[in-house]
């Protein structure tokens, strides 16, 4: 029989690194969040004041509001596109699906900084987007896409849509491919049209994939940092700040370390809650 301590011997390296550089810092973040500290001088215990700030501080409320807008662009739009594209592709056998999967997945493997540089070029005042708009006679729509109080946040959001749509489409295709062809034939014999077929057969079959897609993309939206840091630095004004950007600014630029930690912990709790809720929603599927 192996002695009791044997398994722990194998776990030591993982536990040490993981404990010291992930678990312990989380605890420290919680601790930081209860203090007011500028990063240099003495700190003062303030209880939950920093968390209250998350609810009342106009800048922080705006940042979380922007994150909500980004969720629409990072999660909902890609889900709608992905479902539609996969459902249509699933109806007829086409060749080249392998190549298609590869191509639409590419945005996922690029560093966000690369993506940001690419889209800055596209959105530039004399960039391809404005040139294209002018070419088709829509001069009135051209603008400085990243210098506009109304349009910059959606412009950043569209980048998220671009990054996530491929991943979601590939997920949906994988889920739909599992439905036996006979079920579609039977549905058609019963006279079901494309819409009926989608609602009654296709949609229920990809419930699990929808949950996975939503989890991945909403978390990505909530964690957005690189994109904002490189594309807009939160501007113009503070029209594109997001929670992660506020964490960075407050912790390392404006000397509000406690507030930064409170925002970070709030973000973490949101992400955990979201995982829980989405998993709960699809759980019945696991029982079958």
């Amino acid at each position, binding site marked *: 029989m*192996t002695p009791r301590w044997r*398994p*722990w011997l*194998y776990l030591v*390296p*993982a*536990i040490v*690194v*993981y404990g*010291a*550089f*992930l678990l312990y*810092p989380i605890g*420290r*973040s919680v601790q930081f969040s209860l203090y007011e500290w500028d*990063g240099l001088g003495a700190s003062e215990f303030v209880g939950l004041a920093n968390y209250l700030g998350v609810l009342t501080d106009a800048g922080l409320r705006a940042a979380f509001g922007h994150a909500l807008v980004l969720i629409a662009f990072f999660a909902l739009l890609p889900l709608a596109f992905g479902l539609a*594209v996969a459902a*249509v*592709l699933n*109806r*007829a*056998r*086409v060749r*080249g699906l392998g190549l298609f*999967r*590869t*191509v639409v*997945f*590419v945005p996922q*493997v*690029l*560093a966000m*900084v*690369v993506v940001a*540089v*690419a*889209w800055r*070029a596209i959105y530039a005042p004399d960039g*391809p987007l404005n040139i294209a708009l002018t070419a088709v006679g829509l001069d009135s729509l051209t603008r400085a896409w990243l210098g506009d109080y109304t349009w910059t946040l959606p412009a950043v959001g569209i980048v998220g849509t671009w990054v996530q*749509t491929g991943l979601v489409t*590939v*997920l949906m295709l994988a889920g739909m491919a599992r439905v036996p062809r006979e079920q579609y034939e039977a549905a058609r014999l019963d006279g079901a049209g494309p819409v009926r077929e989608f609602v009654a057969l296709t949609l229920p079959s990809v419930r699990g994939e929808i949950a*996975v897609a939503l989890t991945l993309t909403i*978390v990505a939206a*909530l*964690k957005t*940092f*690189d994109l904002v840091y*490189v594309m807009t630095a939160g501007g113009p004004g503070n029209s594109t700040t997001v929670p*992660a950007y506020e*964490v*960075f600014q407050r*912790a*390392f630029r404006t000397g509000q*370390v406690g507030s930064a930690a409170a*925002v*970070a912990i709030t*973000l*973490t709790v949101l*992400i955990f809650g979201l995982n829980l809720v989405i998993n709960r929603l699809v759980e019945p599927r696991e029982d079958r």
Partner: protein
Amino acid sequence: MTTSRAETAMNYLLLVVVCAFALGPIVVVLVTSLQPDLGGGGIAWGNYAEAWSQGSFARYLRTSALVSATVLVVALTASVLAGYAFGTMTFRGSTVVFSLVLVGIMVPTEAIVVPLFYDLRTLGLTNTLWAVAFPQMAQSIAFGSYWMRAYFRTAPRSLMEAARLDGASERRVLWSILVPVGRPAIVTMTVLVFMWTWNEFLIALVMAPSGRLRTAPLGLANFQGQYTSETALLAAGAVIVALPTVILFLFLQRHFIRGMLEGVAK
């Protein structure tokens, strides 16, 4: 299943449109990176050489390679060992410890980076390779232990038992039998950890503020700050930074797609 010709044709059209949407911005960057200066003509391959030297990309790529290699070696080893224990051994406390590891997969970097910076600064460790690499190792170990456990749980028991009966030690069973058989799982984990580390921005930005240890994505961000108007050079820099992960993806795409869809990490 019968489908009309019109429908098949429409599907091909849809394939092309979606691919164009995915590739459009990439094509824009490639075209921009080869654009000559005003007045010049032809294809300006020289932009790459200029970006390479002006942006010090050789140095940044070297730093990125060093960070990635360090993270990979430690995270892979620790994950294989931990996955072996979680997946093949029954012991008190295994469920609790494993749940703690699962938590780590969901924790966003923002939740650890603030105290990591200030605590490591106190220890005088910021601006070192370790400050940049260790937090990323921890994140990758969370995913890796989960991923390797899943493999070890499905590894053929009969093979393990036969080897044990032949007198092979626990360690030998792991390194000479299970690891070679589990190569696909290990390759998947390797490419994901490499990609995450290569592309990581926030940790590299915060943990090495002096700029001596700038990784490639940071170098690119910095380059953009300095040469805002040099669109062509900037695009060339972006291509240089993206190339390693894209090439790896093209060769091992099945591992990427499988890992990112099944791993449901990060």
